[in-house]
């Protein structure tokens, strides 16, 4: 057996480009965006120009034709500078664009996917409702076909939808009940009458990421705005979520690895009692443990990306990567704050922002509990 752990020279070269971009265009502004709760649309467009929104899609739609690992590396590198920008990218690609790539008609691909890939517009994915989160099958939003006008009439509500209300948001793909036991994906264009985007949530972290509650009140869209096959909405989003979990795990990995670097640098530089604090085992060993966790997370994330690239089943691998990477990211940010002492608690400090930004990773795109549920079921346990 030959195990190959080296990314290709091209992947490494691209990592260097994205790191350069993140350090030059994102990192210097991230603290201000966080403080002011700004969605930095110019920086998002710059990510588009760099081709990040099109990485995993084929060149015929303007994509980069990259493998999934390259996409994960890009997210990891952006996340090292700013989790908000990384989630804007991840949600834009994995939740916004991917459904069109998988399920869209050629026309839908041309109209939606192509500009999303170019980073000119964003798409959002509306699954969660006030009373249907982990239990997404409990979706209450209804869409009824008005035969006389060939339009869907949508009534209902969605909660916590990323990228749904930016000035470049083109549409939201929602899951809606089109019959008692039927869930269908329907595309609702921004600005459609009866589609109300509520003011952004005030959040604990991810301040520069755009999150809204959406209300549908007799909202009408043309019949052909169904994405994919009617009644297959549930199947589609399970697939979308599996893929997305690998990408979220890459985001968590980036945050954890940035915390490791910041912690080691600070432990070497900060003086206390006549020497650097890194000479205390209690500090040094935190860094050592963090390094192990980052290494493990990287192996899980890259392996999951590799499995996906091979066309193998990824449900468990994606769940493991997401579960582990998000939990070690929360641990790493907490310990990084501890290593930074009082400075770690001050808003502008990177690790303080990361501490606030990390927690959501254990919740979004399937909570840690849901990942464990997937894994336990995969083990054949009769778990509920």
């Amino acid at each position: 057996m030959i195990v190959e752990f080296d990314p290709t020279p091209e992947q490494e070269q691209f990592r260097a480009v994205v790191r350069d971009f993140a350090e030059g265009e994102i990192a210097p502004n991230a603290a201000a965006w966080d403080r002011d709760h700004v969605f930095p649309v110019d920086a998002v467009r710059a990510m588009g120009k760099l081709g990040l929104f099109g990485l995993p899609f084929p060149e015929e739609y303007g994509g980069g034709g990259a493998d999934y690992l390259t996409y994960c590396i890009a997210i990891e590198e952006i996340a090292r500078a700013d989790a908000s920008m990384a989630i804007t990218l991840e949600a834009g690609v994995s939740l916004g664009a991917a459904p069109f790539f998988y399920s869209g008609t050629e026309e839908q691909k041309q109209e939606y996917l192509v500009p999303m890939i170019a980073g000119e517009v964003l798409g959002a994915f509306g699954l969660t409702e006030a009373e249907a989160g982990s239990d997404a099958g409990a979706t209450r939003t209804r869409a009824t076909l008005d035969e006389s006008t060939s339009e869907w009439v949508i009534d209902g509500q969605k909660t916590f939808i990323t990228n749904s209300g930016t000035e470049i948001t083109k549409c939201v793909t929602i899951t809606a009940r089109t019959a008692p036991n039927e869930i269908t994906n329907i595309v609702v264009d921004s600005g459609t009458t009866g589609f109300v985007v509520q003011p952004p949530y005030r959040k604990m972290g991810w301040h520069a990421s755009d999150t809204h509650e959406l209300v549908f009140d007799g909202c009408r869209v043309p019949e052909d705005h169904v994405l994919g096959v009617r009644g297959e909405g549930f199947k589609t989003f399970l697939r979308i979520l599996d893929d997305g979990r690998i990408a979220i795990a890459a985001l968590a990995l980036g945050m954890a690895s940035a915390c490791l670097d910041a912690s080691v640098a600070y432990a070497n530089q900060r003086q206390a009692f006549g020497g650097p604090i890194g000479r205390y085992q209690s500090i040094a060993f935190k860094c050592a443990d963090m390094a192990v966790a980052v290494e493990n997370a990287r192996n899980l994330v890259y392996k999951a990306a590799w499995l996906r690239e091979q066309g193998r089943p990824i449900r468990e691998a994606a769940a493991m990567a997401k579960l582990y990477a998000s939990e070690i990211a929360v641990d790493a940010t907490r310990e990084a704050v501890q290593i930074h002492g009082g400075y770690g608690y001050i808003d502008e400090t990177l690790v303080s922002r990361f501490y606030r930004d990390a927690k959501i990773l254990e919740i979004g795109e399937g909570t840690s509990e849901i990942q464990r549920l997937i894994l336990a079921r995969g083990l054949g346990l009769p778990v509920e």
Partner: protein
Amino acid sequence: MNVAVCVKQIPDPAVPGSLSSDHTLDRSGKLILDESDSYGVEMALQLVDAAGGGEVTLISMAPNDEVSGLRTALAMGAAKAILVSDPALAGSDALSTAKVLAKSIERAGDIDLVLAATESSDGYTGTVPAQVGELLGWPALTFSRHVEIADGKVKVQRQTEAGYDEVEASLPAIVSVTAGVVEPRYPSFKGIMAAKNKPVDKVTAADLGLDASQVGWAGARQEIVNVEQAPARQAGEKFEDDGTGAEKIVAFLEQLKVV
């Protein structure tokens, strides 16, 4: 319109450099594209684009068949490269470098314009572009902060202390550009993958018709006799602020003629 860009591949400035025993910079490790040259590459790509046709050829002289920096510039969009790599070139001074670059430009053939940086980040003699111009018998325009092609001529804004001069020359010509002439693009993943298959013409001094005695240590007209640390800075004069601190600062600045 075909543009050649001289791109130097240099040791990563982020990594502390060291000198070899012959007092030259240790270039045995991985080399990267000199950031100064990314401006020339971008400018060239934009000029070719504006002209509606043609291609960008890279010219580089570097040890050990180094292509990392060239790959970066190819990923940005250059079409091909000529790399001169030859043990006989070790110890080349700026003039030998210029001879090699001039011969390479001739080898590329059918070049309308050559771009280079004002000075490299590691050697920074700032003399190579003008020497290349002289060897080719082409006009050399320097310190350009803006470059355009019109009516078969190259027109540049030449940076001066006070502003800029407008200078133009007939083609072919060589132009050295300043940082800030244009904003270099980041290479895309597609560009990086495409760069893998772009041709790099690897040549030796002999391939260029240069005799080993004209280049390298043999051809150098200058010799590095010794290298010494710059003297440590002298401690400044210290004043306790007894209420006259502001006056003392003003007096000091007046003495320097800055106020």
